[in-house]
């Protein structure tokens, strides 16, 4: 689509328009200073010293030689960390290793030098004596009693189980049961900026410029590790070159604080690509055993899902990823019986963390693939089966039983793709295949919750100030990672205040200025942060009315009057609504499972060509229908969708972070492949508007859900083209070739 084809709703002037992103004019000239471009006077350069074994015991750390290297100003080890713990949910990670090494690349020391070269020379001079231990690299092995424990309490980080109805009985009576195990791989975010930042300590106050997606959490983790008051830590988290979940956790801000304090000088650390690839968090690999039962009419009667999740060495956000995966295990479908069992295991592999979709893509691939297989066995159309089972607003969630909120447009989204010519004309397109390239078409659907899960209590703050001349500044939102967020906030504010968009200044990502806003994650930056902006604007309007001004508002006058009364600064918190209707869900389960009330959905049709000589797959087209509520900035919706689809193509076909016994093998962009401009299919975004009453002007978050159907739509298309069941990702040429050979024999 062209973004201009979306008409702005009549009641708004800016919401609904494809306003260019705010910093674009300084991005294109190279002027925008990213956090890794920053320099401060008298600044030092830091380097992180890392282990080169995935499992072992650090016996000795010799730092004297490093301290003597010319230009080295400080060398810090675990003994220099006042409170050596880290972890947002389970504090199970040391800031610097002081005993057990649990991951290849665990940090053991920090070096600051007057130049990068001095810091590197210092880092190279540090001697480690390590007792190497065999790596725990298979999560199933990790869960056996005989496996070495990576943490007190064993390797089972979390087991999550839930059942609705009676799945065993339902499957026993089903007309078909698809029973299959699916594997998904480790995926690396590959933000174009490898990452880094600057730390400063001045007059007892820390300022940390680091691209974190949860500035508030970074603030409290720095404070906890350094045993200081969080008020003394300011996190400035923007602008950064991409995040996608990778910058949601980890010790990096603490490293900067430690070095800045120890040296009393600003310290910059710029991570290398190899470093981030080796040690940065990754999308969790899942092993999912699925049993899906349908009746003769194509209605899903039961689903049994058993997932083993490789959490890696530290808990990080793995417990939350597991619960979001559980919620998504039943997809956008209604069914009377469903069971989920998920176990997250500690291993010495890459550290599982947040990545766009947060466990949901790993569930959609097995479920959508199973539905396709069931359709074939029932000799029915896969899209028709989806249509017969799609969730509608007011239905109970298939696993949790709570009520799906009124803005869910799963059925309309599915129909938008079923009506798409690429799906309608799939038979003719397939017949036009030439040479070694076979053709196929696939369809896949997904849902994902917006925000943290209502019952857990999602909250975002915003601050707004009207100055004496009537100008408006808004501080809101966790950070800007490229998702038009200041732009969308300004659009919301401009319409809420009925003022020109250009007159609204928006600042995001600074803990000193922005009230706690939670994370730039969970499809919530616009849904929650935008909600807070709207609430702040409404509060301002009511104050203006209270001081006696009527429409049209004289903004100079408003600024003067509110300033004089001390009412010029508005600070509000926006709370997501509770799950108002718990349905069959027991209240005690709510905090454990944190169900959502608000869901977005996306459906893809993919057309691919598969080379029968080599197994190569080329994606020719993907059309995505997305249920986004009201599109505040349609170009932003399209941009998020297209970018997500390319990441989904990577997940489907090429991205594969490999480890051998815990040692990363693909630590450069030469061995870890992501899609290039040569891999882009024809893309189409179909905006299915609804209207979510709890979102700003009806908006929902969509940046994650649009990635979820890509891989199963592509593997369905591969199946249509050459008849193979892709049961593992990625579908590399080798994987597809082997499956085709298996079909022959």
């Amino acid at each position: 689509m062209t973004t201009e084809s979306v008409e702005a709703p009549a009641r708004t002037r800016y919401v609904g328009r494809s306003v260019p992103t705010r910093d674009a004019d300084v991005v294109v000239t190279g002027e925008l200073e990213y956090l890794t471009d920053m320099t401060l006077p008298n600044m030092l350069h830091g380097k992180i010293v890392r282990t080169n074994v995935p499992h072992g015991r650090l016996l000795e750390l010799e730092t004297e030689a490093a301290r003597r290297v010319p230009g080295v100003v400080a060398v810090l080890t675990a003994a220099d960390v006042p409170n050596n713990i880290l972890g947002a949910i389970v504090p199970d990670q040391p800031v610097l290793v002081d005993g057990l090494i649990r991951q290849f690349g665990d940090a053991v020391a920090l070096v600051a030098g007057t130049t990068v070269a001095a810091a590197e020379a210092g880092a190279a001079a540090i001697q480690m004596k390590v007792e190497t231990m065999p790596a725990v690299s298979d999560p199933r092995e990790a869960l056996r009693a005989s496996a070495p424990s990576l943490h007190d309490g064993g390797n089972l980080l979390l087991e999550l189980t839930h059942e609705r109805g009676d799945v065993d009985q339902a499957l026993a009576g089903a007309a078909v049961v698809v029973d299959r195990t699916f594997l998904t791989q480790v995926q690396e975010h590959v933000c174009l900026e490898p990452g880094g930042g600057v730390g400063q300590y001045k007059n007892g106050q820390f300022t940390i410029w680091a691209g974190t997606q949860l500035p508030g959490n970074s603030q409290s983790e720095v404070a906890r590790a350094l045993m200081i008051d969080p008020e003394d830590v300011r996190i400035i988290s923007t602008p950064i070159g991409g995040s996608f979940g990778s910058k949601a956790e980890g010790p990096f801000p603490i490293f900067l604080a430690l070095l800045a304090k120890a040296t009393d000088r600003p310290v910059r650390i710029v991570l290398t690509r190899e470093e981030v690839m080796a040690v940065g968090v990754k999308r969790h690999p899942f092993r999912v055993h699925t049993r899906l039962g349908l009746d003769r009419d194509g209605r899903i009667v039961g689903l049994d899902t058993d997932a083993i999740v490789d959490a890696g060495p530290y808990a990080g956000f793995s417990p939350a990823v597991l619960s979001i995966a559980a919620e998504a295990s039943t997809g956008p479908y209604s069914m009377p019986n469903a069971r989920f069992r998920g176990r997250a295991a500690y291993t010495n592999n890459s550290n599982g963390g947040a990545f766009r979709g947060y466990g949901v893509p790993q569930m959609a691939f097995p479920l959508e693939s199973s539905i396709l297989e069931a359709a074939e066995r029932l000799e029915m159309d896969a899209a028709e089966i989806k249509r017969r089972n799609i969730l509608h607003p007011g239905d109970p969630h298939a696993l949790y039983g709570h009520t799906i909120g009124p803005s869910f447009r799963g059925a309309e989204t599915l129909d938008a793709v079923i009506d798409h010519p690429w799906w309608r004309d799939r038979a003719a397109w397939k017949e036009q295949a030439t040479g070694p390239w076979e053709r196929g078409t696939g369809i896949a659907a997904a849902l994902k919750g917006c925000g943290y899960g209502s019952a857990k209590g999602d909250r975002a703050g915003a601050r707004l100030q009207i100055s004496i001349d009537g100008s408006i500044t808004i501080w809101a939102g966790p950070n800007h990672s490229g998702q038009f967020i200041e732009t969308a906030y300004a659009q919301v504010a401009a319409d809420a205040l009925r003022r020109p968009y250009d007159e609204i200044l928006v600042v995001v990502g600074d803990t000193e200025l922005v009230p706690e806003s939670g994370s730039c994650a969970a499809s919530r930056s616009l849904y929650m942060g935008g909600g807070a902006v709207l609430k702040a604007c409404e509060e301002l309007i009511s104050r203006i009315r209270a001081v006696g001004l009527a429409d049209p508002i004289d903004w100079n006058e408003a600024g003067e009057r509110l300033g004089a009364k001390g009412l010029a600064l508005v600070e509000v918190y926006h709370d997501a609504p509770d799950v108002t209707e718990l349905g069959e869900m027991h209240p005690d389960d709510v905090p454990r499972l944190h169900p959502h009330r608000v869901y977005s959905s996306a459906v893809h049709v993919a057309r691919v060509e598969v080379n029968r000589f080599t197994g190569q797959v080329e994606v020719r087209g993907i059309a995505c229908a997305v249920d986004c509520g009201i599109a505040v900035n349609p170009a932003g919706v399209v941009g998020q969708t297209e970018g997500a689809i390319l990441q989904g193509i990577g997940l489907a076909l090429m991205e594969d972070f490999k480890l051998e016994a815990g040692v990363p093998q693909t630590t450069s962009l030469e061995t870890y492949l992501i899609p290039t401009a040569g891999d882009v299919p024809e893309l189409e975004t179909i905006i299915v508007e609804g209207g979510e009453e709890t979102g700003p002007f009806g908006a929902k978050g969509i940046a994650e859900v649009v990635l979820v159907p890509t891989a199963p739509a592509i593997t369905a298309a591969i199946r249509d083209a050459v008849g193979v069941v892709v049961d593992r990702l990625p579908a590399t040429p080798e994987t597809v070739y082997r499956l085709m050979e298996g079909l022959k024999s």
Partner: protein
Amino acid sequence: MVELLSPATLLDLRTLAGTGRIIAGGTDLIVQMRSGRNETHLIDITNIEDAPPAAIIRSGVAELSAMASITKVVDELNGRLPGIAAAAQVFASLQIRNRATIGGNLANASPAGDMIPPLVAAEAYAVVDGPSGQRRIPVDELITGPGRTVLEPNEWLSLVGVPLFEGEEGFIKLGGRTAMAISIVSLAWRWHRSDHGALTGVRIALGAVAPTVVRAHKAEAILEGQQPTADVVMAATDALQTEISPIGDVRASAGYRQAVAGGLLRQALATS
């Protein structure tokens, strides 16, 4: 601290050669230095005033500069040597081709170097230059193993001579993505196809399936004089598989390379 010297003439280069590592486009060497290769002295050969021209045609042979950027060479060829041009087109990215040289790709001696198979299939020769003058070596004798060549430390590649060809020629590669990927397997070919479809003068070279780029002599012999019928192609691909000895690495397994090399030959026969 690394020293870089940039001689301006071949004479200066001959004098300096041997005192450091030769660097041309640097697109491999600088990457290797980033991952730990230790070089203290570099001698740049990209600013030699009397270096060979990017490409000239001389009595049936295209002489391609080994010291000029691949972009310049291919631009100068202007459609000739389609096998070389096809390899260049999928050689990394434009940014890399604007620096990388044919000489560098040969001297780096990667089994997966994309410029090598079309040179081997064309039975090209390389001109090696050095303090003691020039010598001429068939390209398939230049490289002795992964990263190993017959070049002395004080020698460099000056040009490659590629016989012009009137028949069909081409290059295809299989990578992990459409572009910007190191070859899993690559294949270059030259053959004449008669009006009746019979192939003659068959030359086939494969990359990334052995310690060096290799010719598929047995498969060539089977195809020679034949129409590529299903049986002939089957026999040729079977033979091809006995001529290669791939290894498994992070990009693909040995078994897949072994199997898919034949698939590339099928594709070449079907599409060219």
